[in-house]
């Protein structure tokens, strides 16, 4: 007797017309050293790596930029506007990033508060509208708020990136419900950005059905960033596959897994 088993096959993540080979995106900040960073990123299997735009330090003009360590031919560079507190600043940083000549994608951040690093959603929407008009593919870091997410999609963002919890907090996914509803209502990809602390956080996040996850501190601040990179690769793949597989229904009473018939008399 033959039965045909259907195996779930995932489609590649596509943002702004570009296909990505990994659903895990990682940052490049806060590593103890560049060798560890490169090894951790390689272990994570991430294709997309985020970078920030900053002044060249002229007192150490031989200082190496991040591209000295990470080959832009091997990774997809996603510049951010981290540290910007107004729409105008974020727009300025985005233009500088695009001028560097890698791509037209920008991870747009307009921060509203120093303690929480929560986004200023009014400034975020304003900047998103301008940058979309200028041809940027905007990936907007935002709250886990459905209405803001819908407005960002309406503004033409290529992806919406709600937070799991505050940047660098490692608190994990604090509100799965809001992430699920954002994913359900948006047509553009939803990438959860910020707050993932360990592999189970990444797995649970992906199990909500989102398209990807972005993290930095979870790797950079792990005791062994390279091992954590591998763990995150597995976790993101496991969470994605579990979502696609469709989990069993939960119930509060036991159901035997072995036959109840055929017991000895």
């Amino acid at each position, binding site marked *: 007797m033959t039965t045909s088993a259907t195996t779930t096959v995932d489609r590649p993540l596509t943002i702004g017309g570009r296909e990505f080979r990994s659903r895990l995106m990682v*940052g*490049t*900040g*806060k*590593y103890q050293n560049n060798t560890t*960073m490169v090894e951790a990123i390689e272990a994570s299997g991430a294709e997309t790596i*985020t*970078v*920030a*735009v*900053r*002044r*060249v330090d*002229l007192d150490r*003009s*031989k200082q190496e*930029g*991040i*591209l000295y360590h990470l080959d832009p031919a091997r990774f997809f*560079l996603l*510049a*951010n506007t*981290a540290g910007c507190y107004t729409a105008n600043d974020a727009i*300025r940083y985005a*233009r*500088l*990033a695009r*001028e*560097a*000549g890698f791509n037209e994608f920008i991870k747009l951040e307009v921060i509203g508060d120093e303690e929480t690093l929560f986004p200023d959603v009014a400034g975020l929407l304003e900047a998103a509208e301008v940058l979309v008009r200028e041809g940027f593919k905007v990936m907007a870091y935002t709250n886990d708020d459905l209405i803001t997410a819908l407005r960002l999609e309406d503004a033409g963002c290529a992806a919406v990136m709600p937070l799991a919890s505050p*940047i*660098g907090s490692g608190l994990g996914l604090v509100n799965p419900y809001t992430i699920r509803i954002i994913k359900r209502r948006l047509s553009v990809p939803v990438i959860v950005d*910020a707050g993932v602390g360990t592999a189970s956080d990444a797995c649970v996040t992906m199990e909500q059905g989102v398209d990807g996850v*972005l*993290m*930095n*501190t979870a790797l950079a601040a792990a005791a062994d960033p390279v091992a954590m990179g591998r763990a995150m690769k597995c976790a993101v793949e496991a969470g994605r596959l579990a979502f696609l597989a469709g989990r069993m229904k939960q119930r509060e009473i036991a159901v035997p897994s072995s036959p109840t018939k055929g017991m000895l008399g």
Partner: protein
Amino acid sequence: MSGMIRVVVNGQERDIDRSSTGLDLLRVLELDPRTVVVELNEEIVRRPSLSEIRLRDGDRIEIVHFVGGG
């Protein structure tokens, strides 16, 4: 001598030759134009224009690159 002008580069005052172009400034700072982006008075200078733009007294120049970030 009137051969020098004063500009502000990344927040620091610098005296440079009066006839300096954007590219000359990068050379003096030992920076590879392919690895940085230059802003002159808050306007981006495209790379091909760096050798054409003459800097003037009081110009504010920002030179940026990519660093690690999340």
